[in-house]
């Protein structure tokens, strides 16, 4: 019956209950949508980093190769023998791995026959490229970073192994405007020049096929994507800079990285594995998420504070109004803890109602916002991304749990403190 009584008590002062509920619902909606947005951004940036920036979930380098590859590529590349050793190490983890790929990166000059400008290139094997751009995670979460050109790059390479993809800004710098497919064959031909692993200048022909976006404003002036073999040719090597591992489940990243590194250590192999969320691998992802988490933490603190204060205020007023009633309960044998619990139950009912209302309102707001297809350019990102709000089921449960705990503790604490009054004082109080 106590739960029944607690529920009915909510309707004693409807105005106050509505006001308190409004604060709690607003807090719930705020956290739900903010959390949903952060989850959406996180998944988008993660998909972008793992698949579209070709980092993989785990990257394996030669020991110290992450830092030193570009100064001494001949020493820090993964030779064919190295790659074989690594694949042997990965056999026990096969069930967690979706596929592995190879990548090489470097800098150089791209020339149109008259003018040269610097580029930063990544060369990825064709199979990896194909699986990445068509991956369900990318299509679901990082669609804004994909263009039709990105999707067409694979078939372009299949037709012409010298095909490269550059950013539209880089294209403008060499006087080649998008779409590149409309250019005459003569104009599509470009040269890539760079230092090979022997330290000599080398150059290869390449064909402009499609454009792509690096996703980062900083890299948009120099981004170049090439077939893995073409860059190997340019840099005069049969080695790779790193090996990418793509997992079936990205929750396994940390454990798997540690396990792989342990095997490397145990077998004395000169390799190192890094997870995608290592700041040295995905600075943009780590930096952006760090900022968002900090902001979220601040808002959680703020909202929880506001909700707690609303509850404190509401309960304090409730106790003042029901002082004599509380005295009566005490007189007929109820302990202060039992009364605290009764009032806490009222707050928990309120939390439950507000959680349900909050979820519904969040869904409605999310649906409206998403249907408006609002686009914006986040700082440091070259393309426009959709401002989308999603309601995440697990997040809703977590926030509901957080609110229950917060409101429960706050209520119990307030009432416990307030109900320590003497019974005679409670009974003699006229209330408000």
């Amino acid at each position, binding site marked *: 019956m106590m739960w029944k009584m607690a529920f009915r008590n909510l309707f004693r002062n409807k105005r106050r209950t509505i006001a308190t509920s409004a604060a709690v619902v607003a807090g719930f909606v705020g956290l739900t949508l903010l959390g949903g947005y952060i989850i959406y951004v996180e998944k988008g940036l993660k998909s972008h980093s793992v698949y579209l920036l070709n980092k993989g979930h785990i990257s394996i380098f030669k020991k110290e190769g992450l830092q030193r590859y570009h100064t001494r590529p001949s020493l820090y590349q993964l030779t064919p023998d190295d790659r074989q050793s690594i694949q042997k190490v990965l056999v026990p983890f096969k069930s967690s791995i979706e596929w592995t790929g190879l990548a090489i990166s470097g800098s150089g000059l791209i020339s149109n026959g008259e003018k040269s400008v610097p580029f930063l290139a990544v060369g990825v094997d064709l199979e990896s490229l194909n699986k990445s751009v068509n991956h369900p995670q990318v299509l679901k979460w990082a669609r804004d970073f994909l263009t039709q050109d990105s999707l067409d790059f694979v078939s372009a390479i299949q037709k012409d192994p010298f095909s490269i993809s550059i950013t539209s800004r880089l294209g403008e710098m060499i006087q080649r405007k998008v779409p590149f497919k409309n250019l005459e064959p003569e104009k599509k031909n470009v040269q890539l020049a760079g230092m090979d692993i022997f330290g000599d200048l080398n150059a290869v022909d390449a064909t402009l096929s499609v454009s792509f976006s690096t996703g980062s404003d900083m890299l948009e002036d120099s981004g170049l994507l090439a077939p893995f073999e073409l860059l190997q040719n340019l840099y005069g090597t049969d080695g790779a800079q790193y090996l990418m591992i793509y997992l079936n489940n990205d929750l396994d990243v940390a454990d798997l990285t540690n396990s792989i590194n342990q095997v490397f250590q145990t077998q004395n192999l000169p390799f190192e594995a890094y997870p995608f969320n290592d700041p040295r691998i995905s600075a943009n992802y780590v930096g952006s998420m760090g900022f968002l988490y900090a902001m979220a933490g601040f808002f959680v603190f703020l909202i929880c504070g506001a909700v707690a204060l609303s509850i404190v205020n509401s309960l304090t007023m409730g106790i003042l109004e029901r002082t*004599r009633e509380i005295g009566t309960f005490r007189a*007929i*044998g109820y302990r202060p803890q039992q009364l605290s619990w009764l009032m806490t139950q009222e707050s928990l009912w309120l939390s439950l109602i507000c959680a349900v209302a909050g979820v519904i309102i969040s869904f409605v707001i999310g649906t409206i916002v998403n249907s408006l297809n609002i686009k914006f350019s986040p700082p440091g990102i070259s393309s426009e991304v959709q401002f989308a709000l999603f309601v995440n089921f697990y997040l809703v449960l977590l926030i509901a749990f957080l609110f229950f705990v917060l409101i429960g503790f706050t209520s119990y604490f307030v009432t416990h403190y307030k109900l320590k009054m003497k019974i005679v004082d409670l009974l003699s109080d006229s209330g408000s």
Partner: protein
Amino acid sequence: MSLVQLKNVKKSYKLGETWVPALRGVNLEIRAGEFTSVIGASGSGKSTLLNLVGCLDLPTEGSIQIGGQEVTQMNELQQCSLRNEKIGFIFQSFNLVPVLNIWENIELPLLVKANLPLDQRNQRVQSVIQSVGLETFKHHRPDQLSGGQRQRVAIARALVTQPSLVLADEPTANLDSKTAHMILDLMAELNKTQNVTFLFCSHDEKLIGRVGRIVRIHDGLIVE
């Protein structure tokens, strides 16, 4: 045998910097089955006396025994138990819970320990609701009843735990004289039929004729 025994009970309240004596050494015995009224002027200490007997407060000095147990030595849990099992309270303003119906209001004291099976609980509530003649109103809320009816609910609530002692502080103060008499008659009848000891306080001398024993209190001391 004494159900309630007070020995040299004193109670003082602090008002600002001064101590105000409400009871200045009260000695009183109430035997089981008595129907006793404490009469005194306003501020004489009668409510204080009832509060101390009901373990709603503790004396500054002295001893209070209820059913042979010294209440001044009890901890809070023991006092709660005593109040719930041995003592019933009837208040001047009825003190019913507005969000509960009559049945639920009466049932409240039985839920403190919740150690009574449901059917027994229902039986008890049914029994007391019948004894106060409110069976047809059991699903009504307090705001749907008259003053007299509400006080009858309060009486039923006080009796549902089958206490040995019922304390009533000015039970008829908020009632018209006709209703007041009815309530007093009800209490007297219950005293006779259920052998429940009643101790109540009132400043209304007109009700004196209906009680078995009168205790007069003046300036914090029993005078009669």
